[in-house]
């Protein structure tokens, strides 16, 4: 599918980064012209704010700053927003209701998820909980699939329309420091590319080089990070509709457990308009100690009898990989420092909480809060640590930190050995035994089947009781 937005993006790519004036000098990269005009009465800063990274967090922050009348530069190291970004496939855009009430009119959705399956795989068997809510396909909508190249470009464009200045193809290489070591802007890889700013918002993604340099973050750790590996596979629209039981712009979202060959993690399968996205999210430390290659795990998922029929005859259009911060609430960095705020994956804000797998909405929520906090701090004349503390207070009273705080134990539960290695087999054994009719033998009691399935999978009754209690506590 080629949306108008895609065409805009390709045009932007051909013409070079938006926000540049004139041709690049021969043999070199164009300087950041026009950004550093002196602004009388505003001290030495060239702009009010620099936002690093035009992903969902960065564009949301830039949107709020521009709307507050602030001069804001939105830096993007890729040739267009979204070009460095990979995710599973579903965005929950209701977070935009308050700021872009018309988002549904032109947000680049591929499909609207009306079917959500949680699938436990064991050997060649599968047990699913399949939820279908047709209403999720009608306004106001719930979750939509989208390509990040489309969605991130669309959101960045909204920020630009509000007055932000997008500078693509530009990598932030470090922080500028002012008196007392406070963050005073960023260095870029453009000639003359130092950008002074009264506040920097680091939305530079999971590797978060700027938050690390600012001393807010020790950097991601293998134990709290997952590698997402994904293939986008082309199929005719009709085939997708028929195989998944969809029509129009309805979409499906499958999350899988028990398919990662012993590496803590899970699998996913999402429908786009004329492609499906299939892949795995794997604990980086688990992947490393397994010695397996990530694409082998994806292959395993693709040829499982519960998944393969959905993919048959498809052609791989794009292979991709990206890290996912999974540490959650317990491993978030400090969210603000002297002259700097951190939002999105750079702050570890992806929610990987078992039945809930969300990230873009958290990035947008945090970006909006960061943009507002920065604008208020600028208005109050204090973009130091004290002035920026309002950011964390705002996040605590929003879903961003409330959900993370509430679900802080969920990932450990989902990645625990019994949930990963024992329960999918237990569920499949129990379901198979319950639904296998082997007359003339009479039906055994379900309680006996449960005990037998538990024993066969090395699960004791007190484990079941303990885990049920843990589920109740974690998802309270």
């Amino acid at each position, binding site marked *: 599918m080629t949306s108008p937005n895609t065409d805009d993006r390709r045009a932007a790519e051909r013409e070079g*980064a938006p926000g540049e004036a004139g041709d690049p000098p021969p043999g070199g*990269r164009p300087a950041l012209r026009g950004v550093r005009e002196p602004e009388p009465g505003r001290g030495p800063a060239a702009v009010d704010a620099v936002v690093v990274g035009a992903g969902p967090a960065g564009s949301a922050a830039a949107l709020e700053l521009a709307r507050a009348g602030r001069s804001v530069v939105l830096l993007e*190291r*890729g*040739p267009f927003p979204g*070009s*460095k*970004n*990979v*995710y599973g496939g579903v965005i929950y855009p209701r977070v935009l209701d308050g700021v872009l009430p018309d988002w549904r009119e032109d947000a680049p959705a591929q499909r609207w998820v009306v079917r959500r399956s949680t699938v436990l795989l*064991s*050997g*060649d*068997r599968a047990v699913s909980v399949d939820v279908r809510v047709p209403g999720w396909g009608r306004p106001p909508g719930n979750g939509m699939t989208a*390509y*990040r*190249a489309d969605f991130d470009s669309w959101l960045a464009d909204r920020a630009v329309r509000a007055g932000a200045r997008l500078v*693509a*193809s*530009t*990598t932030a290489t470090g922080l500028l420091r002012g008196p007392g070591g406070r963050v005073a802007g960023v260095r*870029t*890889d*453009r000639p003359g590319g130092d950008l002074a700013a009264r506040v920097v918002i680091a939305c530079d993604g*999971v*590797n978060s*080089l700027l938050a690390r340099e600012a001393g807010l973050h020790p950097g*991601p750790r*293998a134990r709290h990070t997952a*590698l997402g*590996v994904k*293939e986008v596979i082309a199929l005719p629209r009709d085939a997708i509709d028929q195989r998944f039981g969809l029509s129009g712009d309805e979409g499906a979202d499958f999350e899988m457990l028990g398919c990662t060959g012993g590496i803590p993690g899970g699998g996913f399968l999402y429908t*786009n308009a004329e*492609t499906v*996205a299939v892949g795995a999210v794997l604990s*980086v430390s688990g*992947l*490393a100690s397994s*010695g*397996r*290659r990530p*694409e082998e795990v994806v*292959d*395993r998922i*693709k*040829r*499982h*009898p519960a998944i393969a029929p959905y993919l048959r005859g498809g052609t*791989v*259009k*794009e*292979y*991709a*990989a*990206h*890290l996912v911060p999974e540490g959650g609430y317990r491993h978030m960095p400090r969210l603000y420092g002297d002259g700097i705020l951190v939002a999105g994956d750079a702050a570890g804000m992806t929610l990987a909480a078992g039945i809930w797998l969300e990230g873009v909405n958290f990035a947008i929520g945090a970006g909006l809060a960061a943009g507002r906090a920065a604008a208020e701090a600028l208005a109050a004349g204090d973009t130091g640590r004290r002035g920026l503390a309002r950011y964390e207070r705002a996040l605590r009273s929003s879903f961003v930190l409330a959900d993370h705080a509430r679900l802080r134990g969920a990932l450990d539960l989902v990645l625990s050995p019994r949930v990963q290695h024992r329960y999918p087999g237990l569920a499949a054994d129990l379901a*198979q*035994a319950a639904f*296998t009719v*082997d007359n003339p033998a009479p039906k055994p009691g379900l309680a006996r089947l449960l005990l037998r399935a538990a024993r066969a999978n090395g699960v004791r009754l007190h484990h079941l009781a303990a885990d049920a209690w843990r589920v109740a506590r974690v998802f309270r």
Partner: protein
Amino acid sequence: MSSADRPRPLPPAEEPSLADRMATVDFDVGGRPHITVDTRVCRSCTTKACVSACPADLFSPTADGGVLFNYEHCFECGTCYLVCNEAGAISWGYPDGGRGVVFRRG
């Protein structure tokens, strides 16, 4: 459970090779390696986890016990430095602006 009921191993792979998959990805390769690997340090590494974990398969063990790295078709993900055991073996950064991987359907 009868033998017919027992779970069977998955059918064999008929998947495209990793090279086929990598051929689907757009790269605008820059002239400067954004990640460098000090193969002398790698010689003392016993796990060489980067070799199997890198999703683009850019790390190759060498005959002398080191590791050879090619930056050109890199996803810029960060897995290599996260799994690296040997301090100083991998210097990790981003490519110059506009260079490197370009995901169209990420």
